[in-house]
């Protein structure tokens, strides 16, 4: 039963009929979300002008006075995580078509993917040893 992504199972489903409902559900969900937002905006009473002021409009920091600029310096770890995510998520994307066709590729396919995976595993081990995955320090 070789069916690459199952394209030949239901040939009557054209591109329009396959993706039309996707746009419909996105549109419907957007409608629901926007309706909730509109309800909150229209029904919610506005802030009275006399309430405006220091106490109403400062960013909430557990009740203590705000300690200055809002955009603080952030740990570089977040950027490292983002970069690692790109690397490994693309690895996962490469594995999908291979996984679907795996039973046709056999041992050769497994060996080839092993080479690819071992390169990325070395990368993971390197990051690990360098401490890129450590958040404790």
């Amino acid at each position, binding site marked *: 039963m070789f069916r690459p992504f199952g394209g030949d199972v239901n040939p009557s489903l054209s591109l329009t009929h396959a993706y039309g409902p996707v746009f419909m559900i996105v549109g419907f969900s957007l409608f629901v979300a926007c309706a*909730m937002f509109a309800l909150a905006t229209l029904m919610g009473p506005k802030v009275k002008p006399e309430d405006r002021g220091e106490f109403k409009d400062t960013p909430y920091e557990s009740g203590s006075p705000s300690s200055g600029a809002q955009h603080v310096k952030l740990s570089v770890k977040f950027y490292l995580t983002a970069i690692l995510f790109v690397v490994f998520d693309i690895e996962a994307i490469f594995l999908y078509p291979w996984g679907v066709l795996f039973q046709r590729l056999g041992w050769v396919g497994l060996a080839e993917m092993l080479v690819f995976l071992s390169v990325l595993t070395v990368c993971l081990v390197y990051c690990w040893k360098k401490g890129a995955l450590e958040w404790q320090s």
Partner: protein
Amino acid sequence: MLFWIQAFVKIALIVGVLVNMAAILLWVERKQSAMMQDRVGPNRAAIAVFGKRFRLAGLVHSIADGIKMVWKEDWEPKTGDKLLYRLAPIVALVPPLCLFAVIPFGPTLYIDHAREMFSPAWATEATARTVPLQITNLDVGVLFIFAVAGAGIIGSALAGWASDNKFSLMGGLRAASQMVSYEVAMGLSLVGAFMIYQTVRLDEMVAWQQEHTWGIFVQPLGFVLFAVSAIAETKRVPFDVPEGESELVAGYFTEYAGLKFGMFASGELVEVCTSSAILVTIFLGGWHMPFFTDRGLEFIFRGASAVSPEVAAQFVASHTMTPGFDASQGVTTASLLQHCANAFASVNGSFVWHWPHWAVVVVGLGNFVLKAAFLIFMQLQIRWTLPRFRYDQIMKLGWQMLLPAALVNVLVTGTAILFFNGPSGG
């Protein structure tokens, strides 16, 4: 035109059910937390009819919450990005609602000959118009789920950035970083399932599981990895550092009030529902149960269908004296084998119970809903059992445990398939 009407009806039903599930889960959570942690929940809201007050076991509180949220003061921070601030809750709520588009939630419904819906086993795909109980049957299947789930990250990141609050910013960053990390483990945990099913289409995964066995039995590690990653993606309690109230007030939605906050909260609860539905479809057989076919219940044991001549001869030799076998009419091979087949059918049993079509559809739908409800219950149970993890523990679990485990799962699955099946060639 009928196609689009059907699609619209299905979409309206699914989105409606999901939005209401958020309110119902809120109630379930209150009941569960009251029971598990000895909390006294909110217990006043009631509907008064002629002086009598009906609390409906606390269900009224979910409605009261919704009404209260709508009429909350509509406050917005003075500084910060107004447009992104307003966009964030919408972006956070839409992806979880759209995820359901590719999930098959029941068997195919045949809508022609409505009169015959009530007689058993009448429909054939060739004669009847079909309504698949799935909003759309995409070729990319699971990839669509990952793409849309990935878009959910943007909502919390935007909220954190646009609120112009240190705590919000920290919460947004934590949320983005955590979800991105678990997206990797989540993506890799399904590769083993793809290797076995040889497809990424969800309806074919369900068909495979009907034909063979449930995915959880061939991919137990994959199931656990995916379930843990899915819980982490919902940012709920063991993984809720993005909104940890003891550290960040409320994380990325600190500066949101009323229904705008409610949109984040209901988005989370909808995610619980959709992740359970995805788990059910990929690992727990979707809308199937054992012996359930598109005609009803069929228990067919191997012995009844395949009888080799040797077994038949042996069986006949031991049964020629059984009542019902009339030797006086002359014993031919054909009559022997006929008797043999009858005997096997009665001894081993091939029990077939065909239902009307509507019953098959209802039971299929019920299977899906029950399994999903069970997984939702398990997720809520986990939420009220475990304490919050530290952030470094969460990142360690994602990158140093789940990711290597997912890679090992891929290798073990591959080796096992080739070792037991051999390269099948198609």
